[in-house]
C-alpha cells in the first residue's frame, strides 16, 4: 500500500470503474428486503397464518357480512330455536326471535371501531409520551409525564372507566374506545421510555448525530425502526384488552345498549339465567366463542410479530442477501 500516498479523494473515485445496479434491480432489492422477506417469514410462521386467517374472517364479517345479513329485530324468526337447524338462523335464535348469528355479525363493525380507537389512543399516547420522556430524561417534562403515568397505573382501570362512562354515558363506539384507551397507555409508555433510553445509548444513534443527519431522520430510522416491532406487538395486545374491557362494560350493563355488542347478547342471556336454561345457552355461548376467537387471533399475532420483525430472520428470508454469511460470535 505504499503507492497510495499519491492518491487523493477524488482520484480514488475517478479511478473506479464499476457498473452500478440498474434502477429496476434496486427496486427489486428494496421490495424483497422490506416487503417480501417479512411476508415470507409470516407465511412460514403458523401463528401468523392462523392469526391472519381469523382476522380476515372477522374483517369479512364486519364488511361483507353486515351487507349480507339483515339487521335483526324482534320477531324475525321463531323464539329460542336450536342452533344448526335452519339456514336463516344457523346459530339459533334468542328469546325475542332474533337470529344469534346476525346479531354477532352486526356487532363486528362497532367492535372494530372500538379496537381501532382504543389501540390508537393507548399506543399513540404511549409512544408520544415514552419518546418525549425518554429524550428529555432528567428534565421536568420527563418527571411530570412519568408521575402522571405512575398515577394512572395506580388507579384501577375498570372502576375508573366505569365511573367515567357512568357519568358521560358514551354511545359512539369510537368514544368508548378512547375511554378504554385511557388506562392502557401508562404501562406501555414506561416501557417505551426505557427502550428509548437504551436506544439512545447505542453508538449508532450518536454516530448519526455526529454525521449531522437531521433529527427526524434519526428518529425515524434509528429510534422508530427499533421501537416499531415493540409497538406493533403491543398494539395487538392492546386490541385484545379493548375487546375484554368493552365486552365487560356491556356485559355489566354499564354502557347504554344503543349498539349491538357481543357483551349485550351475553348480558341479556345471563339476565335470563341462561346457565340453568339449556335452550338459552347458545345465546350466551356463541358470543363467548366469538370473543375468545378474536382475542386468540390478536394474542397469536403479537407472538408472530416478534419473528416477523427479527432482522436475522429477515436477512435469511430475503433473496437478494447471501444466505449463509451468518458469522458466529
Amino acid at each position, binding site marked *: 500500500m505504499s503507492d497510495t500516498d499519491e492518491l487523493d479523494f477524488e482520484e480514488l473515485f475517478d479511478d473506479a470503474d464499476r457498473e452500478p445496479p440498474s434502477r429496476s434491480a434496486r427496486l427489486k432489492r428494496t421490495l424483497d428486503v422490506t416487503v417480501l422477506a417479512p411476508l415470507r417469514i409470516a407465511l412460514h410462521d403458523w401463528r401468523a397464518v392462523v392469526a391472519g386467517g381469523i382476522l380476515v374472517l372477522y374483517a369479512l364479517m364486519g364488511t361483507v357480512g353486515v351487507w349480507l345479513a339483515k339487521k335483526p329485530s324482534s320477531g324475525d324468526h321463531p323464539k329460542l330455536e336450536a342452533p344448526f337447524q335452519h339456514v336463516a338462523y344457523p346459530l339459533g335464535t334468542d328469546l325475542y326471535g332474533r337470529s344469534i348469528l346476525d346479531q354477532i355479525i352486526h356487532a363486528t363493525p362497532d367492535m372494530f371501531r372500538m379496537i381501532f380507537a382504543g389501540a390508537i389512543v393507548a399506543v399513540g399516547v404511549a409512544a408520544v409520551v415514552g419518546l418525549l420522556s425518554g429524550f428529555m430524561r432528567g428534565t421536568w417534562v420527563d418527571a411530570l409525564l412519568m*408521575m402522571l403515568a*405512575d*398515577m394512572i*397505573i*395506580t*388507579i*384501577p*382501570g*375498570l*372502576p*375508573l372507566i*366505569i*365511573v*367515567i362512562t*357512568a*357519568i*358521560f354515558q358514551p354511545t359512539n363506539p369510537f368514544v368508548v374506545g378512547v375511554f378504554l384507551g385511557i388506562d392502557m397507555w401508562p*404501562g406501555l409508555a*414506561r*416501557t417505551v*421510555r*426505557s427502550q428509548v*433510553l437504551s436506544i439512545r445509548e447505542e453508538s449508532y444513534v450518536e454516530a448519526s448525530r455526529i454525521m449531522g443527519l437531521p433529527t427526524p431522520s434519526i428518529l425515524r430510522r434509528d429510534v422508530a425502526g427499533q421501537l416499531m416491532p415493540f409497538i406493533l406487538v403491543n398494539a395487538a395486545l392492546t386490541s*385484545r384488552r379493548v*375487546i*375484554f374491557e368493552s*365486552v*365487560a362494560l356491556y*356485559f*355489566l*350493563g*354499564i354502557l347504554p345498549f344503543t349498539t349491538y355488542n357481543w357483551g349485550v347478547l351475553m348480558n341479556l342471556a*345471563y339476565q335470563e339465567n341462561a*346457565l*340453568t336454561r339449556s335452550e338459552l345457552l347458545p345465546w*350466551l355461548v356463541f358470543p*363467548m366463542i366469538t*370473543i*375468545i*376467537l378474536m*382475542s*386468540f387471533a*390478536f*394474542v*397469536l399475532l403479537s*407472538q408472530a410479530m416478534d419473528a416477523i420483525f427479527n432482522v436475522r430472520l429477515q436477512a435469511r428470508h430475503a433473496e437478494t442477501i447471501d444466505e449463509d454469511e451468518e458469522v458466529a460470535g
Partner: protein
Amino acid sequence: MHPRYVLKRTGQMVFTFFATVTLTFVLYQAMPGGPAEAMRAMILAESGDVGGSVSLDLLNEMVEHYANVNPDQPLHVQYYNYLHSLLVEGDMGTSIYQGEPVLDLILQRAPWTMFIGVYALTMGYAVSLFLGAAMAYKERSLFDSVSSTGVILLNSVPYYIFAIVLVYVLGIKYSLFPINGRYGTFVDPGFTLEYMGSVVRHAVLPVVSMGILATGGALTMRGNAIRVLGDDYVRVAELRGLRRSRVAMQYVGRNSVLPLYTQFMIGIAGVLSSTVVVEEIFAYNGMGKLLYDAVLLHDYPLLMGTLLVFTTITLIAIYLADLTYGYIDPRISTGESNE
C-alpha cells in the same frame, strides 16, 4: 436500603393520593350540569318528593351532606371543604340510596375484596412464575410447546367468561363449589370451622377466575428465565458447583422475576379492577359489587368513595411492593437503576 429512596417513594405516594382525591373532585364537577344538577334528581327521587317543592337552599345543603360539595361556593372553597372533610374528618360523604356514611359501607366490604384479591394475585403469580420457569428449563420440549400454547389460549379468554364457564361446569353441572355469596346462607359468622370452611369454599371460584389474569406472566417469565439461563453468572454458578436448587432459586429465579416487577405492579390494579365483574357474577358482596351497585343506582357519593378506596389500596400495595423491590434488587435503591 437508602433512606433517600424511601423518602422519595413516600413523597410520591402521598402526592398520588392527593391527585386521586382531586380527580374524584374534578369528576364531581365534570358531571353534566355540575354536581348539584346531577344529584338533585337522585335526591328528589330518593326523598319521594316528586313534586319538587324542596327549596333550592335545602337541596344544596343536602348535596353538601351527601357529597361534601357545596355547589354555591366558589370552586376553591368547595375543593378545600372537600379535602378537609375527607382528610381531617374522615368523612367520605353519605350514600344517597342507603343513607349510611360511605366509609362505613366500604369498611364492611373491603376485607372481603382484599381477601379474594390477595389470594388471586398470589396464587396467579406463583403458578405463572413456576410454570414460566419450568418452561424455560425445558425449552423446546413437548412440555414447553404444550404449556406455551395453553397459556396463549388462556390469555385469549376474558376472565369473566372463564368465571361463567366455571360457574356452569363446577357450580351448576357438578355442584362442586357454591356460586353465590361470601358464605353459606345458613352459616353463622364466627370463629367456627364451619364458617371458615364455607368462606374458603365460596372464595375458590372467584379467586381462580381472577387468578388467570396473571397467567400472561408465565410467558414473560419464560422469556426472562431463558435469557437469564444464558447469562454468565448462571454458568459460573454451575461451574462453582453450587447446588441445582440454589442456582434455580437464587440465580435464575430471582433475576428473572425482577424485570416482571412493572407487570406485577400493573397486575395489582388489574386484579382489583376485575373484582367489579367477578363479584357481580358470583354475587359476592365485596367492594366491587358495591361500586357496581352504586353505578346502577347513580349513588355518586358511594361511587366516588369506592373509587378512592380502590385507588388507595392499590397505592399502598404498590408502595409496599416498591420498597421490597428496592430491598431485593440492590441496584435500585443505590440509584444504579437501569429503569
